[in-house]
């Protein structure tokens, strides 16, 4: 349902993405791995319209979205979270979600109703009226996830959600992600460095690996993490 064809993007001399081609199928969870600076976040930025690629095309359900604005892409049903969380710091938890549901409903009451359903679902209704500056790292992650869910997306891009969380917190987030796949029929594209969480907790359907902007491996999780190129890419950066 999401097709990325021959996408390249460079920043000055750095080739952040080098002729990347991949596709996501309806209702699967795909992990995206690769060493720091391999272009994972850049790929998300290109998909959601924050960056224009130098070359290549992106199709969503057969429709080209390559040069659409971020707001149009979002309205088509592609929603994302940000590396290290991104919330409107001045607003409360519920307002941070309402801001995302307003474009769907254009009525404050309906937007609030939708936002409340989602925070109830995720069990964070108690912190609904709290300013997000007062939240813990884990709560911020959940709020960002709630905001994404409230957009009723078809495709969700998640950028590094497990970092810095306890075992139990990782487990909770994994459950939410599985719920998103099962109950919302969402397709999830997920950048993560904690590969164990991908394989053991969420049980992703596929993994794609990037290195220096190039796609180096793709396939079943066990295959990809045992792939020679992938191991070298990871070992390369740790210099073992």
């Amino acid at each position, binding site marked *: 349902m999401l097709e990325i064809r021959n996408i390249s993007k460079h920043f000055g001399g750095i080739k952040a993405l080098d002729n990347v081609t991949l596709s996501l199928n309806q209702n699967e969870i795909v992990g995206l791995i690769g060493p720091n600076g391999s272009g994972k976040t850049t790929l998300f930025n290109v998909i959601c319209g924050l960056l224009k690629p130098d070359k290549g095309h992106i199709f969503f359900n057969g429709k080209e979205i390559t040069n659409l*604005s971020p707001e149009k892409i979002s309205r088509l049903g592609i929603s994302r979270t*940000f590396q290290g969380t991104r919330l409107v710091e001045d*607003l409360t938890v519920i307002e941070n979600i309402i*801001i995302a549901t307003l*474009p769907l409903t254009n009525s404050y009451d309906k937007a609030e109703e939708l936002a409340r359903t989602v925070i109830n679902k995720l069990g964070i209704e108690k912190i609904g009226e709290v300013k997000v500056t007062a939240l813990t790292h884990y709560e911020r992650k959940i709020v960002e996830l709630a905001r994404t869910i409230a957009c009723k997306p078809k495709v969700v891009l998640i950028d590094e959600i497990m970092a810095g969380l306890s075992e139990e917190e990782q487990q909770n987030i994994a459950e939410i992600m599985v719920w998103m796949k099962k109950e919302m029929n969402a397709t999830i594209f997920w950048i993560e460095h904690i590969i164990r969480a991908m394989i053991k907790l969420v049980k992703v359907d596929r993994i794609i690996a990037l290195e220096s902007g190039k796609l180096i491996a793709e396939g079943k999780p066990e295959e990809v993490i045992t792939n020679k190129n992938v191991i070298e890419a990871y070992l390369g950066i740790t210099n073992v």
Partner: protein
Amino acid sequence: MEITNIFFIIFLSLQIGLIYGLIALGFNLLYSSTRIINITYGDFITLSGYITFWLYSLYNISPFLSLGISSFFLILFTLPFFYILEKFVLSSKNILYIEIWGVIITFGFSIFLQGTMSYLWSAQSRSYAYLDNVIDFFGVSFLLNKFLTTIVAALLIFLLYFLLFKTNIGIMLRGVIQDPELASNLGLNMRKIFLIAFIISSFIASISGVLLSMSFEINPFMGSIYLILAFVIAVVGGIGNPLGSLISGILFGFVDVIISYTIGPSLKFFIIYSLLLLILIYRPWGLMGRGVRYA
């Protein structure tokens, strides 16, 4: 100093301070959401002052009615103004481009408006006397019109507070101000929000113009002075911080009145800009600023 004198100075400072705060708020809201430094902003204030002046002088229409009439015309005028800026400036993704071309285009508009107003109505300063009888309030004498402008300014501040902090428009505007990139990623209709910011900003300018004309002289070029004041006060209060603009406006009101009463009005601007310079050297993001994210 006698106690009544102190009350009098507090009242005068608040009267001008609330208007300063409003002017800065309108400028701040527009800049922090759209990145357009609207040089024409001050001339909107002037234009509104003239509309009020002429309606009162020629047809005896109360300035309180002009609050509505003038806002209506200025918002009408804002629509093509917005359209031009949207087409040639706001469509860019580059903030520097928006800031520079925003200044160039609105500067052009400003020259055009000031020229037209001085051609049509001459460069002479004008004023009118409306409700200028003295009222006694706990032993302090005020001009009734100054008293009423203060009340209108306070009401407008309440209205804006409600709009910014209690409505969906406010949530969206504050979201766009704090993180435009995130807002567009959440699917917010940026064009609509920019238009709303323009309308609110023009509405504030027109109300301020009416209120200023009720107690001060107006002339075709005064917009430049109010523009600079709006800019300075907004920077001191913090770009992107509506409450900061208000507090900083009231602060400037006190500085303005106290300097005028003690040292004398001729040194007013020298001292105000020296203060600005000091503040910007030590706190470049303003006294209450939190730094706006550059997407």
